[in-house]
């Protein structure tokens, strides 16, 4: 299991995951709430997230969140909370991936078969470790970004209408505020930085750049969407990036947009699932250090598959609630306690070392 992740890879991985979160599962909710004024909500959330990320990275102990929990008596609960958090994030990302494949590429394929196809990939991602996942997404990242830019430009180049953004504030500041808060729920992924702080040469750099890149990429997408569709212009807002590619100029050049859309989006979604499983496994290992690390990939993988298998329409209310990122981000709050305790102990040790 290779967990020796480096700063550039962490930056790309986190940026990809945040973008996926803002543009796939929650995107239609943002558009329904704000219309094309969603760009302000994303901008505000992105800048706030950057500040929050920087602040929390500075608060994180140098030894890493999980190491602090392992060293302190009674702190075994916090790795378990981290395990639950990342398993739920992986389940949400997996559900989005299955929905995307089922809606656009393989509508007649049973959902269990789609899961079976993805299982080796996500299982391997967890098995090989977060460094392998991050390196893979960093490798294909530039190509995906170029493809994304091509889709955006071709979709709007001769059809974009800047007047679609008026009235500028859409449903008003309160709606924008609520949407920005909802978008901030992606803080659920920030503990990745706190866990891997010892290995990253510049955790602050990753913590600052990743949200900024994600904001820029998501903003570009929503601006293109707004240029093409006035408020409520698309028949449906689900998977806005796909609606953009299917209805705009891109569909004149490339008639079959589904496969290309999935090709560009699938690696990002699978990276999110893989990252969730890797960090869940490492959290579980911190709680059960005696158990072999690789075997502990199985529980979060099984949990993610069990929770993420059903689509939204066929899931019970409690499951849909559990797989909402808004709720999952609340699990980050208890993790602040070992962070504060670890940081305080670190400061104390440094003081003693200086006096000695």
């Amino acid at each position, binding site marked *: 299991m290779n967990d020796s992740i480096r700063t550039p890879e962490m930056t790309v991985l986190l940026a990809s995951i945040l973008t996926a979160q803002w543009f796939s599962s929650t995107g239609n909710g943002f558009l329904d709430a704000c219309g094309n004024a969603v760009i302000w909500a994303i901008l505000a959330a992105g800048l706030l997230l950057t500040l929050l990320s920087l602040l929390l990275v500075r608060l994180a102990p140098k030894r890493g969140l999980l190491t602090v929990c392992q060293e302190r008596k009674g702190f075994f609960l916090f790795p378990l909370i981290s395990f639950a958090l990342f398993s739920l994030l992986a389940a949400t990302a997996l559900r989005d991936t299955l929905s995307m494949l089922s809606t656009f590429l393989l509508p007649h394929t049973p959902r269990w*078969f789609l899961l079976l196809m993805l299982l*080796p990939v996500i299982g391997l991602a967890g098995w090989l470790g977060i460094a392998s996942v991050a390196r893979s997404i960093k490798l294909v990242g530039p190509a995906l970004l170029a493809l994304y830019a091509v889709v955006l430009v071709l979709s709007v180049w001769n059809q974009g209408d800047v007047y679609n953004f*008026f009235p500028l504030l859409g*449903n008003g500041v309160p709606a924008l505020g609520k949407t920005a808060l909802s978008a901030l729920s992606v803080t659920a992924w920030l503990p990745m930085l706190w866990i891997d702080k010892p290995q990253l040469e510049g955790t602050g750099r990753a913590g600052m750049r990743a949200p900024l890149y994600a904001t820029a990429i998501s903003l570009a997408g929503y601006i293109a969407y707004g240029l093409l569709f006035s*408020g*409520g212009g698309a*028949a*449906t807002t689900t998977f806005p990036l796909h609606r953009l590619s*299917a209805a705009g100029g891109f569909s004149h050049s490339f008639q079959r947009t589904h496969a290309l859309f999935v090709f560009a989006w699938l690696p990002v979604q699978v990276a999110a699932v893989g990252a969730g499983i890797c960090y869940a496994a490492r959290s579980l290992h911190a709680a059960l250090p005696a158990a072999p690390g690789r075997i502990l990939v199985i529980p979060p993988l099984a949990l993610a598959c069990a929770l993420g298998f059903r689509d939204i329409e066929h899931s019970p209310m409690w499951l849909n609630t559990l797989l909402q990122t808004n709720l999952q981000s609340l699990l980050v709050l208890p993790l602040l306690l070992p962070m504060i305790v670890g940081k305080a102990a670190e400061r104390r040790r440094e003081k003693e070392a200086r006096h000695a």
Partner: protein
Amino acid sequence: MRKWAAVLLMAALAMQLTGCYDAVDLGDQIFAINLALDKGETKALRLTMQYPQITPVGKEGADSGGGNSDLKKDGYLIEQVEGDDLSACLTLMRMVTPRKMDLMQLRGIFISETLANSRVTVQECLSALLSTHNARPTATVFLTRGRAEDVLSAQVPLFGARLSKSQSAQSSQLQEQGVITASPLNTFYYCFATPGCSAVAVLTAVNGMQYISAPSSQGTQATSYLAGDVPRNTVGTTDYCGCAVFGDEDLMFLDGYETQLLNLMLGKLRELNMEIGGRTVSLYFPRAPRIKVKPLDPDGPRIAIRVPVLCDVPDAAPYTQRLIDDLATLLLKLQQRKMDPVDFAQRARVSALTLEDWGAMDWPALYARAVFDISIA
């Protein structure tokens, strides 16, 4: 070694994403090229669909019910069903043509004038087409004078063997001349479903060829005809000329010349032939007109339009003045019928900060008393 095995395994599994599980043989599919919606005789809706007849190379196409009838013409089949709504019609259609139906190749959606008066039905049909039945979002929406099925039956390839190619070529030419509008399904549906927004469809009709001997009523310009009234006798029997503008409760036809003026306002017309006193002059429009809407102007709501015009004759003043007069006439006509196909509302929204402010502004009332200020740049 294990990593390479893992990579090979992933590649092998990724190949399954090509969708062989869902593969559908070409012979098991049917691709609709055109679709017509009319009021039914026994049910609420009559659906007519036109499909290409795909036959093996070198073999004659097998007769499949219809023989030499109108249901089979020039390599295209026509099927017709009636139902209470579009989904019921499509279900019945799947029964009579037991193949997987693909609407992603749709080129034209023809709606009859009679059916267009039933806004709810039209909206439901279009919504179902876009959302449920995955119709091609860029299919063109036509309004037919008379029965839509008659216009659809008259669709034959004019250039070459493929109807879709022929229709696309014809549409491009006519749009370049400006006598028809570009009316893709997704844009049409959005405007149709949005209160205060005026959807525009291409006007079409079957031409009986009677006007070549006894000309129909015509406006002042060479293109001032409605579809169906063009004095001609040519190969194709279908006229595409003019457009139909849908208000909230109203429907209005614009002839070919008025449609050219509308396209000019929308920035889609580059050249216009203007005739005065038997002399025709070409006017060129290098850019789209600049439109400024001031809904809250102290002197009352104002819509200022500056049209850039180039003319290669020295005495262009009468022609440009005529252009201004005709534009004003058209805009006043649309204003009186409370229609806004140019979408001045879009520009007026700049004055509002939120949707609530926009609602409070009451744009329909402002538009009704707006003053147009048209000038040549």
